[in-house]
Every structure is written in structure tokens, then in C-alpha cells.
């Protein structure tokens, strides 16, 4: 398990979001705990992830609090 900000390109499962306010923000954009996401562009700079047809840019401030797990 690692923080999204540390994740390289590839598929990951969202395991947890540490701060509740940030979880709300993500959910509003359609990303939930348990979802499989694809990191298209890793940090440094905002991380770009994909889930289905949704592509989202996430600033490091939020990506620091998203815990993900690599999916084989």
C-alpha cells in the first residue's frame, strides 16, 4: 500500500482516503474507496488518474491522503 502521490503509472485500488473532506471531494467526482483507478501521470505535479471514462487531475495536497494498492 502506498500514497497516491508515490504511485507510478499503472492500475491501483483505492484503499482509503485519510481526510473525510477530501473523501467527499473525490466521491463528488465519482471516485470511491474500493474503485480501481489507473494512474496516467504520476507525481511530481498533480497526479492524473482515470476511472472508466472519467479523467481527473488531483493536486499533491489531496493525493497525499489517498491510499492505494497496486492491482496486478
Amino acid at each position, binding site marked *: 500500500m502506498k500514497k497516491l502521490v508515490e504511485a507510478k503509472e499503472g492500475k491501483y485500488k483505492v484503499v482509503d482516503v485519510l481526510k473525510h473532506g477530501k473523501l*467527499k471531494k473525490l466521491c*463528488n467526482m*465519482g471516485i470511491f474507496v474500493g474503485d480501481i483507478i489507473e494512474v496516467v501521470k504520476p507525481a511530481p*505535479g498533480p497526479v*492524473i488518474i482515470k476511472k472508466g471514462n472519467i*479523467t481527473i487531475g488531483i493536486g*499533491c*495536497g489531496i493525493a497525499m491522503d489517498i491510499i492505494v494498492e497496486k492491482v496486478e
Partner: protein
Amino acid sequence: MKMEEKIVAIAGNPNTGKTTIFNSLTGTRQQVGNWPGVTVEKKEGYYIYKDVKFKVVDLPGTYTLTGESEDQKIAIDFITQNEVDVLIIMADALNLERSLYLLLLLSEFHKNIIIDLNMVDLAEKEGIEYEIQHLEKLLKVKFVKTVGNKNIGIEDLKEEIYKKCKEPPSEFFEFNYGEEIEKVISEIVCQFKNLKLPYPPRFLAIKILEKDEYFTNFIITKVDWKKINDLIMNTEKFLNKPLDRVLMEKRYGIIHGIVKESLIEKKKELKPEITEKVDRILTHNFLGPLFFLFIIFIIFNAVFVWGKPFVNFIELILEKLKIVFSYLNLPIWINSLIKDGIISGVGSVILFLPNIFLFFFFFAILEDTGYMARAAIVADRIMHKVGLHGKSAIPLILGFGCNVPAIMGTRILENKRDKILTSLSIPFMSCSARLPVYLLFTGIFFKENQGMIVFSLYLLGIGIGVLSIKIFGSIFLKDESLPLIIELPPFRMPYWKNVLIESWTRTKYFLKKAGTIIFLGTLILWVLNYFPHPYNYGTEMNFIGKLGSFIFPLFKFSGFGFWQAGVALIFGIYAKELVVVTFGTLFGVENLTETLRFYFTPISAYSFMLMSLLYMPCLATFLILKKEVGIKWALISLFWSLFAGWFFSTLFYQIFSFLKGGTFVN
């Protein structure tokens, strides 16, 4: 007979084609403004269908509905406090779940809803199709399929809106959160029994369960809050989860089920799309910023170089107009009022029009193609260090061209704090109007290193802009800039009709608002310049000259303590180019170089350029600031820029005089 009027509101997630549908419904019969008391853009228009006139209001794009966000509160207030006859919810056929989430929220306080399932062509290409009748049966709302940028389905949408107005629905979708939560909602609603509320009680109860700060603060003093709070705490204890999370999960749970049931074709496994490939370059850590700068450079050039022939043409017309008026046998004062006041003053605003139209034109292209979100990603790293959002970089850079459209460009920022801070720093970005001042003085005093001197002024402007963000950000606007989370829409070809309508409507707004106020400013300045009359226009004996004589001692320590400089600076508030024109008028064009050499030294010349760079760029900038961030911040910006100009020019003059002569100058 007066035509029946109905109100239609369009709500939806960003990037679902809301604006395209709004433009398709209303065409050019629309106007842009601000929502009362806030700086969020308001768009409304109308169209006539059969025997009804429909007023269409484009609500701000939103993913959810909380009272904590200005945009979302506008949407809530508009729907609850106006008699909206039909509410259209835009849904992106590629991301239906997220749009249905908004439907569940909005259905708590509006029942006459149509879902506009937009971009069905793109969804079909990706193998996504829905059984519409099944969706309609489950959600008890009407669905209309559209392809906004191809004008497909617009007539069906108009017909459906018409029908909904004539026969409001008899049954509605009512979301059930489950026994435990519904019980809590009912108990909270009971607490509101004797209250007159501007919001539906059930909606308010749900917002309290979601711990929405705005709605909680709204109700907290009106009810037995302890009782409600205990109820929430006990339920959370029982469910072992925060209630807002439970509500969210319940909503998405049911939506997920509905969408899954209604999906006809399974999504095909796709090869990496062109968007993904292009994104790798556009958001690349090294190539991304280069491309961003390239795009800004192109826009910069297009706005100011391509706009130049049009500006010259307008200038020519204004000159001809002045000549025409000098041939008319009008009383001298009327002639002066028209020529020196109205044509020169209002003309200076009209002169901006080609640049402003081009600026909005390119801006609309960036928005329509989906590049704007990528630009925010690219600039976020640098801007975050300054304390702002990535999106702030776009208006800041455009400020080097002209501060007026740049400040209007801060409308792309969702967060009020970012909007204010960006607007306060834009006036320090050295716009093209300051260039004639630099060229005049560097041409006389710094011939050898003209480029370096001008470049240093641009850098100082950036530095003081950043300092302003830091000062105001840490004193008045302490909240942190919102962390960036932004959806990247797929790349699309711009929809030209949309681009043209957007640019024209915004230009029209600028012309109407800024033009009318500037007209008033023009009259005031003309009076100051013209009276008392027997003296020539704009001399030491007129009110403006007296004002110049009054303020010039202030600049004694800055190196330019003489009344002509005071007058030039006053005229400079009107438009920066007028600083040069004023010196030309007061000293005579043919003797200008020699006279300036007499009055200025290289150090005081740089100090004067610094003052010209830092104090309020022009009246139009002040008025646009007032429009965009309110009079309080416009005045703060005005006084801060005047102080910064005076302080830094004095500091520069004193330090360099000391270094040169070993003594401070007084």
C-alpha cells in the same frame, strides 16, 4: 395579448455540454451578468416555442449541492426561491452515474425535471447505450437524447419542456435512505414544524445530516440543536459511520444499480485514445509547461498583434469623428466636451474591443477543446508555491497584454479567495499600455540597455504581484487555496457557434458595463480639465493642474516632485498611455527629449517608470475590479497600488541616489 412566460433552469455537472444546449436553445438572445452579490457568472436568455416564451437560466456547473460553495448555493437558492417551471439536468451519456447523483439531490426540492442525456453519439461510439424507457420508469423523469454540438435532439427537448410546462408530472421519484435514516430525517423535519423556511424541510434535514456548515449555521439558532445533534451522534454510533458518508454511499449504491440495469451494451475494451496520448505530452512535467507557454504566447500575439489593424481602424474612425466635430459650428465647450471628453474617453474603451473580443474568442476555444483544465494542471506546481491555484496562472499571464480582460478572466476560478488574490495581483503585471512610458524614458536615459531595463520592470511587476498575494493572503484571506481536483474532459474540436456566441456575449457585457461607467468618469475628468474655463484645456490653472500641484510634493522624495509629473500621473489613472501624451502636451512634442532630460536623471526616470508600473493601470481596470470583486477590494487594490508605487519608487530613488552620491536626497 401578453405571451405566457415560463422559467427553465439548466443544471448539471461541468463538461456535460450545458452551455452548448443553452446556446442552442437561446441563440444570441442571451446576456451575461453576475449573480446578485457574488462574482459568479450568470447567463440567461430566452426563446419562444409555440405560444410560450421561455426564460432560460444557465446555473453554475456543479457535481453536488452544498451551501459551502458559492456556485452550488446559487443553484439551490435560484431553484428554491424562484418559480422554476422546468428543471433540466444535463447528463453526460459517458458518465451517467455522476449526473444521476445530482438528480437525486435536486429531486429533493424540484419535481418537474427533464434529463438531457447529451453526447449520446460519443457514448455509442464507446459501446454505451441505455434503455431509456427503463431509466424513465425507475427514476420517474423524462429523458431526452441530444447531441448539443450537432444540434440533434434540440427540437425534442423544446417539445418536452413545453409539455412539462403544460402538464406537470403526477408522480415523482422519491429517494428512500432506509428505515433508520428516514426516521432521523422525519424527526429533524418535526423540529422545523413552526418555522417559516426558505428551503424544503426534508432537504434541510438531509443537509444537516451531511454536516453542511452553511445550512447547519442557518438552522442552529432556530431549533433545539442539542436534540438534533444527539440524534445524529446516536445514529452515527449505531451505523458506525459518519452519516454524510452513509448518505453518499446509499445514493451511489442505488444509482449504480439503476445504471447497470439500464445498460444495453457492455462497454468495449478500447485502445488508448488520442486524448490519452495527447495528454501525456500536454501534462508532461517538462513538455507541458513549454506547450502552455507556447499557447499563451500565441494568444498574446493573436490578441494584441492580430487585433492591431482593428484597433487602428477604430482609432482612425475616432480621429475622423473629432475632425467632423471641429467643422461643426458648435459652442466651444460642447465641442471640447465631445472631442476631449466623450470621444477620447469612451473611445479609449471602444479601442479595447477588438482585443477583448479576441481574448474571449481564444479563451472560449481553450474551454471548448478541453485544454483549460490541462493548463491548470501544468501551472499548479508553480502557483501552489505562491499560494494560488493552477488556474490562476492563465489570467495572470494574460495581464501582460491587458489587465481588463485578464481580471474578467478570473471568472474561471471557482474559489472566491483565489479570485480576489489573483485580481489584486493582475494590476502589477505590466500591460501593453505601460510600454509607451518605458519606451519614452528608456529611449532617452537608458539607450545602451533599453531591453534589460524594460525586462527588469516586468520582473519587478511580477515580484510585487507575488508580494501582494503573500500579504493579502496572509492578512485578509487566510484560508488555504483549495487543493486542485479537476476533471479533464476529452479533447474535442471547438464548436464554433458556441465559441462565437460566448465571445460576443462576454464582449457585449464588457462594453455595456465598463462603457457606461467610463462615460461618467470621462465627464468628471473633462470637467476637471476644462474648468475654470478661460484657461486652456489641461493646464496648471485648471482644476486638474491644481490637483497636480497639490500632489507633486508627495513625489519629492521619489525624484519627480514637479506639477507636470503629478498631472501626468493623474491622467495615467485614466489610461496609462496618457502619461506620455500628457508630457507631450505640457512640454511640447518637439522639445520633449530635452525637457525630460532637464527634469529627470536616469535614477529619477527609473523611479518614475516604477511608479507608472505599480499604480492602478487605468480607470477601466479599477471599474472592472469593482465589478468582479466588489468595491471594497477595488479600493484596497487602488490604495495598495498607489502606496506600492510611491513606496518602491521612493525606496529605489533614495537607495540609488545614496549609492551614487553617498547621501539620501530630500
